[in-house]
């Protein structure tokens, strides 16, 4: 029986799906082909929407999340198994498919464990409660007289009396309503277990998705094939702001396998029977584009930063103004001022955007790796003028762009063309298209001033940040995805975008922030549109702020770690017992693991040959997660090459669900940070993006992997009188301080302060030569 029938019929037996069977895209696809009629929204106020117990006492969990590659599904199973009192191995987890899983919004914001884990735990606890009630009735024994372990309930007074979950409810519905004002608040009557009673949380079962990813058996969204499907490729405007005048279809009409040119406004795609035919046809299609009268983009990053500094901002956030900043500067013993720059950086997933859309039965099914599959369902329905009940998205694994698929262009494009043709359409972006036209992490400029008193204490911070983030792309909005823009749709009021100040925990008595957002001259149909790239503004603002703290420490002739600790320990507000105390614990743990010896920078023993060594520290809070990173670098003064030889990460995200999976998430985010520090920058001229492949938007490679990464999980609140910490998020936090840690380490090694990202060897060498290092 298919899942949707189970969701709407009551008391029926379902075919037992053992936990060992492949429950995933294969099963979902079979389900899809059998499906007719409108696609339901599983009701999150029904226990049956979350948990199915099978006759063999295994369980399937249905959750409304997607995995960006960190193995969150394994952690969901651990949390829910623990609350349900069932063995981890006897459970499976299905995620992100809109008509069979509740809508928890998909993934984003590192909130899977922090936020969405709670309703998962509560509904599993509720299922356990209901099963105990059923056993109580069955045996005529109060619940207090029952014990439960591994899905077997035993009468404590007579252990010969046992019954399994499968015997109690296997294949049948719970029919238990839940409450809660929204899905995050979903709850039953049962309470979740206290941390001390959790047995599976805190273990490290291997991620269930990995075996099929290394033996080639996993069916990804790129692998789906349907009878009658055709292949589509986009033809993008050759320069930003170009208008399509005409298409010469005869240039491709006679190519083998040609099906159709699809075009509306400035959107153009070619469809062919076979994939290689579509690639060839898209290259060969002759379009007549009219260039805009004047070039629409700033002239590369140099032109961009100049423009950002001189233009009038489009929006600003409420400034912080604490104490008397001007007075503090007037009385300062020393004043430091610095400017920093971070360019646009691409998402650039290892596999470009893709989706398969099936318009069968007058409906629309999209096979997609969209991290926000539920939003795509709603967006596509509006975009195509269909009822949302006619549209569903089947989420499948895909290459991660760490935010790129939050507005999944390829899914909208595939659906549009499929509706036009009445055939299943597979859309696949090419590499040059992905590099040039994917969403970008916003560029930033910063101007920061700081004051020191005669004792070397920081008395004032005056921080101004500008981001190029106006018209920041929303999540799967039907009027802002790229195809809608190319169709000519425009919002009256573009999204405000955001700037950022990363950390307000340092005790600096006089503080001022100015956070502004600028808009580029070309706001629509631009290859420089911005979207959420892993911790959207964090790496940029933390680079500037934590580089600056390092500059202040140098000016104060202080050890950069001790300088930070001093400002964290000075606080006496409410935070001092919690956020600051955890920050201090994490910084100290990282320093201890590294073997940090206090001294001011730069390194007096940096080396005398070509290789100079140094260390740098940076720290950040992200939501409730605290992180400190120490980079040890080797800088080659002959070539300018920087190698992060060792990285140490102190990390506190509260209660850890799966330590080994967390370690690897932190490893990856740390190296992602190194990649953004050393390599990543979108190149462009006044007409177009010049980054079109892995040479023109370089990325970290195996050559750059650290020889050693140490991760210290600092799980805990130093105050023993406070309740145990809950589980916080971890997907993005380790992205945040790494650029600053690398910059600070380069300073320690060379005495040269790099204030513009990235630190490619040419830029480093030029800076070293200028400083005669």
């Amino acid at each position: 029986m298919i899942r949707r029938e189970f969701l709407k019929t009551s008391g029926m037996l379902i075919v037992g799906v053992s936990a060992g069977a492949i429950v995933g895209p294969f099963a979902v696809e079979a389900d899809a082909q059998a499906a007719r009629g409108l696609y339901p929204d599983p009701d999150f106020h029904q226990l049956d929407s979350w948990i199915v117990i099978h006759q063999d006492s295994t369980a399937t969990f249905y959750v409304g999340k997607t995995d960006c590659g960190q193995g969150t599904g394994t952690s969901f199973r651990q949390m829910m198994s623990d609350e349900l009192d069932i063995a981890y191995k006897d459970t499976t987890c299905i995620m992100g498919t809109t008509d069979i899983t509740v809508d928890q919004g998909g993934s984003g914001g590192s909130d899977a464990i922090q936020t969405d884990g709670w309703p998962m735990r509560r509904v599993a606890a509720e299922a356990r409660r209901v099963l105990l009630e059923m056993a109580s009735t069955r045996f005529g024994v109060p619940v207090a007289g029952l014990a439960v372990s591994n899905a077997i309930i035993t009468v404590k007074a007579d252990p010969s009396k046992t019954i399994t979950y499968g015997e109690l409810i296997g294949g049948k519905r719970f029919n238990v309503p839940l409450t809660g004002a929204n899905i995050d608040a979903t709850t039953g009557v049962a309470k979740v277990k206290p941390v001390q009673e959790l047995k599976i949380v805190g273990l490290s079962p291997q991620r269930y998705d990995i075996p099929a990813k290394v033996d080639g058996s996993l069916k990804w969204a790129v692998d789906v094939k349907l009878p009658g499907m055709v292949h589509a490729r986009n033809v993008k405007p050759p320069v930003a702001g170009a208008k399509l005048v005409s298409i010469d279809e005869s240039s491709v009409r006679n190519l083998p396998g040609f099906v159709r040119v699809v075009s509306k406004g400035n959107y153009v795609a070619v469809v062919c029977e076979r994939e290689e035919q579509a690639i060839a046809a898209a290259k060969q299609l002759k379009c007549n584009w009219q260039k805009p009268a004047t070039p629409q983009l700033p002239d590369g990053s140099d032109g961009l930063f100049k423009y950002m500094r001189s233009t009038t901002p489009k929006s600003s956030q409420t400034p912080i103004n604490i104490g008397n900043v001007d007075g503090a500067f007037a009385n300062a013993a020393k004043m430091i001022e610095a400017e920093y720059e971070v360019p646009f950086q691409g998402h650039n997933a290892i596999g470009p955007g893709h989706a398969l859309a099936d318009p069968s039965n007058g409906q629309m099914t999209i096979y997609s790796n969209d991290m926000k599959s539920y939003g795509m369902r709603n967006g596509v329905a509006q975009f195509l003028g269909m009822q949302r009940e006619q549209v569903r998205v089947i989420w499948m694994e895909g290459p991660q762009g760490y935010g790129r698929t939050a507005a999944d262009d390829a899914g909208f494009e595939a659906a549009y063309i499929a509706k036009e043709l009445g055939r299943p359409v597979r859309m696949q972006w090419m590499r040059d298209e992905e590099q040039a036209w994917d969403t970008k992490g916003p560029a930033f400029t910063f101007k920061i001033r700081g004051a020191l008193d005669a004792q070397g204490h920081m008395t004032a911070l005056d921080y101004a940040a500008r981001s190029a983030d106006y018209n920041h792309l929303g999540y799967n909005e039907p009027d802002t995805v790229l195809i809608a823009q190319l169709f000519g749709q425009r919002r009256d009021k573009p999204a405000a975008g955001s700037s950022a100040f990363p950390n307000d925990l340092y005790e600096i008595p006089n503080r001022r922030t100015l956070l502004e957002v600028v808009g580029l001259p070309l706001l629509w149909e631009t290859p420089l549109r911005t979207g959420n790239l892993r911790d959207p503004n964090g790496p940029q603002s933390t680079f500037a702020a934590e580089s600056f703290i390092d500059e202040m420490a140098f000016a104060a002739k202080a050890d950069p770690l001790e300088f930070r600790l001093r400002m964290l320990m000075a606080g006496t507000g409410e935070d001092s017992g919690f956020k600051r105390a955890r920050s201090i614990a994490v910084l100290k743990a990282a320093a201890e693991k590294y073997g940090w010896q206090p001294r001011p920078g730069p390194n007096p023993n940096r080396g005398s040959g070509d290789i100079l060594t140094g260390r740098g520290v940076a720290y950040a809070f992200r939501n409730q997660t605290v992180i400190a990173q120490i980079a040890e670098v080797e800088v080659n003064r002959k070539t300018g090459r920087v190698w992060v030889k060792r990285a140490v990460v102190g990390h506190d995200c509260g209660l850890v669900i799966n330590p080994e999976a967390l370690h690897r998430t932190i490893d990856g985010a740390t190296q992602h940070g190194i990649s953004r520090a050393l390599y990543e920058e979108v190149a462009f001229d006044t007409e177009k993006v010049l980054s079109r492949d892995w040479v023109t938007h370089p990325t970290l490679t195996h050559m750059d992997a650290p020889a050693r990464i140490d991760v210290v999980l600092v799980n805990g609140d130093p105050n023993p009188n406070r309740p145990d910490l809950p589980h916080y998020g971890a997907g993005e936090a380790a992205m945040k301080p790494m650029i600053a840690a690398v910059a600070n380490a380069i300073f320690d090694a060379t005495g040269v302060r790099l204030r513009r990202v990235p630190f490619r060897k040419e830029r480093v060498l030029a800076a070293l030569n200028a400083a005669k290092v």
Partner: protein
Amino acid sequence: MSNVTLRVNGRAHTVDIDPATPLLYILRNDLGLQGPRFGCGLGQCGACTVIINGAAVRSCITPTSSVRGEITTLEGLAKDGKLHPLQQAWIDEQVPQCGFCQNGQIMTAKAMLDRNPHPTDEQIRQGMSGTLCRCMTYYRIQAAIKRVAGRNV
């Protein structure tokens, strides 16, 4: 279009195709293989890697007509239901994040270790340097390779 016979993972397949078509599309779309994946179509990232005559080959830029010899894909590494030691090491080290590039990582590592079973750290870096991962799992990949090469890691 013409008939082309390919030997893939121990089986012969004859397909009626344009022989200039890059091997990747034939493997994926005509033979239904899922290991080799499209990443760049430029031979730069390695996601499409297969092994031909012992060499790691970028199937996205290899004309099908140029292929001589047996093609091994990720699906063909396991023997008699037992994973290749590299695949097992990838599981033991829990290497992947999203996993999309790992076909190329594993296949490139296999060709490298077949030539040089005990590479130095520098040889591993060099040998793997053209195979990209945007989840940046490099550190764990290198640990898994060292594990297979019998090295303490």
